[in-house]
């Protein structure tokens, strides 16, 4: 996967940004418990707030839980749903579960690759469990079956 170049804030702002991140991390730790078992819950809460897990946030979690940064980074990078890069404006995910696959999800995916509008990121999922509606798309987190897809199509640039 290509890592997007990260834009650093100007030097005089960096410490302010970092202390804001640290404060937010501390609030999450206070809510979920200052123990290693709470690590995944804390990462979920941080990602929910900020949209992704930035390097300063992971470093602050490591300090707050007194865990090696390697452990925090290792857990964050293990799970598919933790984002280590800033999120795109919109995301559209194709479900590639067996039922969706049998009903032509790969063809749908290929069409989306060609027709994707700017600002949209195409992702894939293994199964969202809406197998009876397949092929299914997840448009900004909302499940869309074939019927709803027609409404959403113009937004995502699907023709």
């Amino acid at each position: 996967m290509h890592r997007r170049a990260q834009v650093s804030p100007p030097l005089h702002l960096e410490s302010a940004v970092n202390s804001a991140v640290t404060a937010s991390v501390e609030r999450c730790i206070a809510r979920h418990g200052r123990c290693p078992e709470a690590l995944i819950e804390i990462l979920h809460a941080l990602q929910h707030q900020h949209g992704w897990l930035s390097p300063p946030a992971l470093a602050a979690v490591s300090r707050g839980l007194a865990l090696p940064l390697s452990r925090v980074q290792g857990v964050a990078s293990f799970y598919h749903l933790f984002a280590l890069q800033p999120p795109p404006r919109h995301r559209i995910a194709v479900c590639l579960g067996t039922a969706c696959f049998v009903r032509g999800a790969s063809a749908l995916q290929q069409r989306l690759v060609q027709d994707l509008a700017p600002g949209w990121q195409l992702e894939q999922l293994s199964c969202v469990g809406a197998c009876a509606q397949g092929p299914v798309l997840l448009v900004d987190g909302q499940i869309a079956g074939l019927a709803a897809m027609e409404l959403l199509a113009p937004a995502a640039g699907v023709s």
Partner: protein
Amino acid sequence: MAQIRCCTASGCRAAGGDALQQALQQARGHQGLSPAALSIKAVGCLRLCGRGPLVALDPADGGCQKLYGAVPPASALALVQLTLAPHAPGAAAALAAHAVDGDHPFFALQQPVVLEGLGRVDPESIDDALAHGAYSQLQRCRAEARPEQVRACIRRSGLRGRGGAGYPTGLKWDTVALQPPGPRLVVCNADEGDPGAFMDRAVLEGDPHRLLEGLAIAAFAVGAELGYVYLRAEYPLAIARLRRALRQLRQRGLLQGLDLQLRVGAGAYVCGEETALLASIAGGRGTPRQRPPYPAQQGLFGRPTLINNVETLAAVPAILRRGADWYAALGTGRSRGTKVFSLSGALPHTGLVEVPMGTSLRTVVETMGGASGVKAVQTGGPAGGCIPSALLDTPIAYETLAELGSMLGSGGMVVLPEGLPMPQLARYFMGFCAAESCGKCVPCRAGTVQLAQLLDRFCAGRGSAGDLQQLEQLGRMVQATSLCGLGQGAPNPVFSTLRHFRHEYEAACGGAPR
């Protein structure tokens, strides 16, 4: 009382269920009716997910329920009129195209045990769940039974693990309960990740209190005071409903000293494997470890830990209520009771079915599902296999499906159409396993990638006899030497398609030389 039950599970939501429910409420208002005169009730899965959004009408005259599917919001008024006046001719005609035949085998052959509350209970209301009998068995256990009596009942019922492995549930409960004195834990595995499986999601979304009752009974039976539900993050509605149900349960004081916690996964299929799941609950990378020691002996935080799947636990209250002998009378051979399947793929009636063990695959797929021109049925997810149409008369049981080179698995059942090339399906599953391999052991991490590359040649029609030999050799090696079920099961789709559709692989050989 007249009532309209709206399915609010994920499937019907994806098909526009929310808009329909709003339109129904508006239509009720237009008719000048109060919620007391016509109740519009949000319920769990009404089974025929492919025709969503589904609504069930319970008419004012107490007649039998009517089911409607794929209903647009514009038909809301007709639905309201028909519920109030079951013989309103205009409304019945307007809805004729959306009527679903409730006597069709898809419904008639079902035997709801795990799913008995789905479509009836409001999943967001503990009062409604209590009115339907939730927690009555838990309270009966606490008041009248000793833990060993509860365990004996489950043992006698013949219930086996519904997550796929089929380990006898009563035996597992005994093993945990009989460990040396000290704290024990219970864990519900709700990390339903097999593509094509949505049984557990339906229970979590449609009747969460039944699952929590089963988990609390299990905790009572093994002497645990702490329990976890590990739920995958891909099921946001199930998470919200379970969270709400847990909150209601605590507020009512029904837990009595038992602490139940929800843990949400973060997108790792391997966490469905029990030791990986425990590592993830403990806040680590979800990688499996060598067994023994089994979690029943040494599990979460080193304590004896009972791990059961959603469907297994959700069957427990019904078994206690109706008796072990009643449950054991259902089913066949060493597979007792009922099994829930999620039916999807190339067939007209897709959705959830619950049938007694021993029902034939043909009954489920063709009679209930209405499939025709079936090439094969895929069961057991990425560790399962394909059963060709000629063998569809096989009765469904743990042993029979394993003998055919597939497995019962967690309950995903995908019908494959005539035109689907089998090497392509095997390649699809191998790609899935390669992407989901946790990377801890080499056979799985590297073997699945190599197998996928070999399968690519067959998909492109340029395999060779040597490739075929290598596919089988490498598959056997990955199966024999991988650390956990993910790697051990990964070659199964290849083996099962080779066993029943070898000619398709051979036809893909002898093309351009390598």
